[in-house]
């Protein structure tokens, strides 16, 4: 490669980085995975009062597979802020001043890898990898949530923020919510698309919003089960 070409390339890189900054894209996020959370995803909902400890062999399997999975996780996100008063539905956004929308994903590799194991009939391995991937998607969203709060610390000063809340939760109609978010953010930049019926592809993806303002409803998006109306949820913790 000649020197000129090299210079042009790095110029291109720079420009691309700049553009990505503008549209706020995060790539190669480093996330932490917690074996206990993965175990929780692998229990039936009746196990709450059951205090059986996970067998050590299972814990070891999970730890080993987590290392394997981390190599296939490509955590990425895109986000941006918008004026809340323009947004629908009003009951979610009317008390807010700025709303941040985000789409996060762990990419397709781990999903494909998991499916391959399941297709081979390696069911136990498949379900463990699947639980790791689900937890990783959650952790990616958590990481992005923190990054947004850090980056907007100036705007947030003197104001309150909600926890993140997602279409499909908190009475936010899934179809409409996804339409709003995907119209405002160019999800192709992180390789996420919507199917004909509003499911995100890759599967292990999460979309969410955070409201910022002097009078935001701080209960909104409180993610603990106490405030959730999915009483029969398999993952309800209380």
């Amino acid at each position: 490669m000649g020197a000129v070409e090299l210079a042009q390339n790095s110029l291109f890189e720079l420009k691309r980085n700049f553009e990505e900054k503008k549209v706020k894209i995060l790539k190669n996020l480093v996330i932490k995975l917690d074996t206990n959370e993965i175990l929780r995803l692998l229990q039936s909902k009746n196990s709450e009062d059951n205090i059986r400890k996970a067998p050590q062999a299972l814990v070891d399997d999970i730890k080993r597979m987590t290392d394997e999975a981390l190599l296939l996780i490509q955590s990425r996100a895109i986000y941006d802020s918008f004026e809340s008063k323009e947004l629908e539905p009003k009951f979610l956004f009317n008390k807010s001043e700025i709303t941040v929308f985000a789409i996060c994903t762990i990419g397709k590799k781990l999903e494909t890898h998991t499916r391959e194991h399941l297709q081979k009939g390696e069911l136990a391995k498949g379900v463990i990898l699947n639980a790791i991937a689900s937890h990783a998607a959650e952790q990616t969203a958590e990481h992005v949530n923190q990054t947004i709060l850090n980056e907007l610390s100036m705007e947030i000063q003197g104001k309150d923020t909600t926890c993140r809340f997602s279409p499909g939760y908190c009475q936010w109609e899934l179809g409409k919510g996804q339409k709003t978010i995907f119209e405002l953010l160019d999800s192709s930049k992180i390789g996420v698309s919507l199917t004909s019926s509003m499911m995100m592809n890759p599967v292990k993806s999460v979309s969410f919003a955070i409201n910022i303002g002097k009078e935001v409803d701080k209960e909104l998006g409180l993610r603990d089960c106490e405030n959730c109306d999915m009483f029969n949820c398999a993952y309800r913790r209380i």
Partner: protein
Amino acid sequence: MSFSEECKSAILSGDISLAEELAHKVIHEKLDVNEAIDAFSLAIREAGDLFEEGEFFLPELMRSAEAMKAAMVIFQPVLEEGKEDRFRGKVVIGTIEGDIHDIGKTLVASMLTAEGFDVHDLGADVPVKTFIEKAIEIDANIICISALLTTTMVGQKKLIDQLKEKNIRDKFKVLIGGAPISKKWVEEIGADGSAENAVSAVKLAKKVLED
């Protein structure tokens, strides 16, 4: 340990090679295949109950299903010779079009297979037409439709409506499932039932075939 106790322990401990060894023994020593399958089946049901009660973690149940399947593969040729006639319900299963979440569906398919159903898994993002064509082709007893989201579960209704339009609704039992499925939705679209996990899905499949 009696032979059926050995079968049980192979399944409950998810020991694939022991399950295979026991199945081979049945074939070679010309023991009663039906009796052996019953012993294995009892064990996989117990594994299912242990999971539902919270005693078993999902990978433990899955390992039991793997061991069960390994044994069934060995029994299969004998069963196909038709000497032993066991009724095996025929199931067409898939995740509805627009929905690409297939883990739940795969788990249901695996447990049905482990319990001796003849399962045709169409995969994910399956058009209504494909479900119906396959069900007619293999003369299925049950159609199982999975959906993860409220926006994708509408496809379950579409499928049942199509069956009605074609006047073949009565030919099949239709079971639906997935996280957002409620009793109300089952009634609204006229499905034959729904179950919240793979273990109760098998119980339900057996029940609707008895009716």
